[in-house]
């Protein structure tokens, strides 16, 4: 990853911070999915054999909600770490620039300062590489969340089918399916936004 301008680096920081903000909302939605799954389990238990086919679906959705929350937690932590590292990289870059400006104005070369500048350059490069690695990792995690949300949408479609044979419990189970479907769609929309923000940086 390279920055052609200070503005680009500031943009990077702003985008990363925005991703962190968006994903906080996703965590809350993932909580909603787990709650819907818990409701569905309760309804399915009351429905008994009428909703037998619903039970494995609710288990899956409950598990998926939990996994999504964990993934979002990891993404948030990684994104916040990356924001810190971007800032550290910026500070190192600023330090290097000021050091070089001072060194350029020396009357005589200073091997001591040359060595300091060399070490600072190495630190700066290492920081930049670390940021790139974090970014790649972040993108991978976001894709995993998106895949989970797609699977949830498929499951909610299947659960609607199961709900049609649940008799008196059809409406309740369809409502659960709708909740899961909307939540999963929302998660996918947010993840796509985050992926788009990060893709422009990478």
């Amino acid at each position, binding site marked *: 990853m390279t920055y052609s301008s200070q503005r680009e680096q500031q943009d990077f920081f702003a985008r990363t911070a925005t991703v962190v903000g968006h994903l906080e909302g996703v965590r809350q939605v993932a909580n909603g999915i787990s709650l819907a799954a818990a409701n569905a389990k309760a309804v399915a238990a009351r429905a008994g054999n009428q909703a037998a086919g619903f039970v494995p679906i609710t288990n899956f959705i409950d598990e998926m909600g939990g996994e999504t929350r964990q993934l979002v937690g990891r993404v948030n932590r990684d994104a916040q770490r990356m924001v810190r590292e971007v800032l550290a990289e910026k*500070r190192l870059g600023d*330090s290097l620039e000021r050091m070089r*400006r*001072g*060194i350029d*104005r020396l009357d005589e070369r200073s091997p001591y300062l040359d060595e300091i500048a060399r070490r600072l350059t190495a630190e700066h490069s290492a920081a930049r590489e670390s940021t790139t690695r974090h970014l790649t990792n972040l993108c991978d995690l976001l894709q995993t969340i998106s895949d989970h949300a797609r699977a949830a949408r498929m499951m909610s479609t299947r659960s609607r089918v199961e709900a049609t044979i649940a008799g008196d419990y059809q409406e309740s189970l369809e409502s659960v399916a709708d909740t899961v479907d909307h939540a999963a769609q929302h998660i996918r929309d947010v993840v796509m936004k985050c992926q788009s923000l990060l893709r422009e940086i990478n």
Partner: protein
Amino acid sequence: MLRTEIFSGRHHWHVFGRDPDKLSQIIDTNQYLVRDQGVSFLLDPGGIETFSAMLPAVASCCDISEISYLFASHQDPDIISSLGLWDKTVPHAKLYAPWLWEGFLKHFGCHNIEYVGIPDEGMTLDLPSVKLHFVPAHYLHSSGNFHVYDPVARILMSGDIGAALEPAGAPMFVDDFNAHVSRMELFHRRWMPSNRAKNDWIARVRQLDIDIMAPQHGRLFRGDDVKRFLDWFEALEVGVTAQHTAAAAPAAAA
């Protein structure tokens, strides 16, 4: 960055300032270096914006690697916001600064340099040929604040006391004290919060043998001008005044 040697003996004092390339929006500052037989001590090394100019200026009078000590009189950014850069440049050095400000100064970046907190009553630092004294100057203006006294050179580095706001290119020393008063008065009335702290400091400093009083902004005082300054400062009413509090108070209801 201009360098002026203000004392030469077994050890030397240098002042750096009057940078012609200084950004216009930042306050001008004086930085000091004491060099004593291969050991150098940088006092109030300056803000981050002055670092690039300070580095070659300091390198012109000593090897950068021999800077073993830094000093920060207090926490202001124009004094020490370059700490993160010096931290990388002289990672082996020690920073002497008020104990009160340690957690604050480290926000500028201090991962390598050792922070030595100066206790409220002050302390000394032994260089090869001179023992320097960190003299308490609390609440003038900062609540944790020290000056540096050299009994051999008879120099008191006085931080913000004696400061004057001047245009670029001002001379290094006061040459007409009466004319200089107008450059100092506003600064001292507004920045120094306590007459009691002021008088306490004056009593302490009058006991010292001072040939040069070296502030962090503006011209240095030498010879009889040191006494003239102390007399002037003693008579000056500083700090929170009725005029200030009346201006800040909301208008009373009719």
